[in-house]
């Protein structure tokens, strides 16, 4: 399973990419392979403020709906509209075109709470 070294991770299988004052968020290769067949993504509302571990988006596979959580406290500043037309991007390119939203983070120190690649690899076995 692909777990890029340069990303951060949550226990709930989101990946986080630092981009200055913002973070880009998606779900990991492991998560998309567990869900398979993503058929619908409910994106967060722009400018929404969210606390860490607050559900902000929903990914629906054929079988079930899964919540996607904000990894740290922040404000939604960008959402991936391409997922509305092509939710399968999450399956095909989980770390690329399948990103879900960008969060402007309140406090960069919060990122220290997240897992590095090695810790996440250990989590998924």
């Amino acid at each position, binding site marked *: 399973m692909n777990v890029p070294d340069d990303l951060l991770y949550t226990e709930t299988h989101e990946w986080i990419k630092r981009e200055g004052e913002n973070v880009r968020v998606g779900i990991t290769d492991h998560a998309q392979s567990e869900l398979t067949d993503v058929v*619908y993504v*409910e994106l967060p509302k722009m400018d929404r403020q969210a606390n860490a571990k607050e559900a902000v988006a929903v990914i629906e*596979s*054929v*079988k079930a709906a899964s919540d996607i959580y904000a990894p740290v406290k922040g404000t939604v500043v960008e959402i991936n509209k391409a997922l509305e037309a092509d939710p399968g991007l999450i399956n095909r390119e989980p770390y690329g075109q399948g990103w879900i939203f960008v969060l402007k983070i309140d406090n960069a120190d919060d990122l220290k709470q997240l897992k590095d690649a090695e810790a996440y690899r250990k989590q998924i076995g």
Partner: protein
Amino acid sequence: MPQRKVHPFGFQGRGGSPNRPGAIEVNRPYLCYVARVTETAPQRTPFYDEHVRLGAKMIPFAGWLMPVQYTSIVEEHQAVRNNVGIFDISHMGQLVVEGAGAREWLNATLTNNIDKLAVGMGQYTFLLNERGGTIDDLIVYQIGDQKFLLVVNAARTEDDFAWLQKRLCAPIQIENRSADFGGVAIQGPRLLELFHALFGKDMQPPPRNAIAELPFDRTNVFVARTGYTGEDGIEVFFRATDAVKFWNATLEKGKPFGIKPCGLGARDTLRLEMCYPLNGSDLSPERNPIEAGLGTFVDLTKPDFIGRDALLKTKEIGSREKLVPFRMKEKGPPPRPHYAVFHNGERVGEVTSGTLSPSLNYGVGMAYIDAAHAKIGAEIDIEIRGQKFPAVIEKKPLYKKSAS
């Protein structure tokens, strides 16, 4: 010619039947009674190691560890619609009822008319409580003069067995043979080709809804022309010790026909496109088969069966609610069980089954709706996470095979 030494259920009928081509229409729910999940460690079917070897995601289901999918629900669904797929149905229960008067007794217990059966034939039927509510839906096969095989939902097996045993009168006997047998469903338009590859080109599968005992590799297996997918198909039952041999032979011989092992996920999307009910979701002890739109499997002209009086009352005053299939009008989130149904802002019902239909690429489902609104073509709204999405009530089935 292979020897016929094993007789799984002591079948007394003939060995084979002429084939009558045509799609299977009468099918039965094989997923099970989700509301009743046992607390004990789930059992493993004879195919457990094969599922793991094939990379299946295993989930506890009705007291069994079952594959929910191997690669992808959509891929497995399409394999069954376009080619052929194999499902593990070993979790299903097998009860054998036997003895003088077994026919009359079963006819007074189950809803369909068993007098329509002859040896080697089967029918879809219901076991009801006194209120007319559904305890289980099942297929009963006549396998001898006074011998019947009941194939029941996995999670219901023990309760069905206890319920039937309590009402039994001598010399009729009932036996729970579920632990001794494994089973698979082989479903899809390329079924016949695969059948001949497995059983020989001179052998014919039984006609629709019939059952036959056929020789297979020095043993005998039960082959029924039934399924839960809307495609042509068979369900095969064999001794647990023969299970892996049959599974691997089917996957090997099925390769040229594009066979895929298929899990419970695809089983659910396939049955829902056909509007076949799932006990525990669309059927329950609080719902009767008439409300569920399955009155054709209930013979009210029979003098008596458990639940008959309650059903006659329902017929007389009409059902308060009806189970209807619906389709979402726009692309959007798929409907799921327990979502509320609205009509002009007023709550009129609740979804019992829902998914994204891989064949139609739209959300589809079934819901119990106030009878006044349960009309084909009626517009409804499904509430999903606080937002209403438009849907329309459809005719059964939701998916129709295009004329070829």
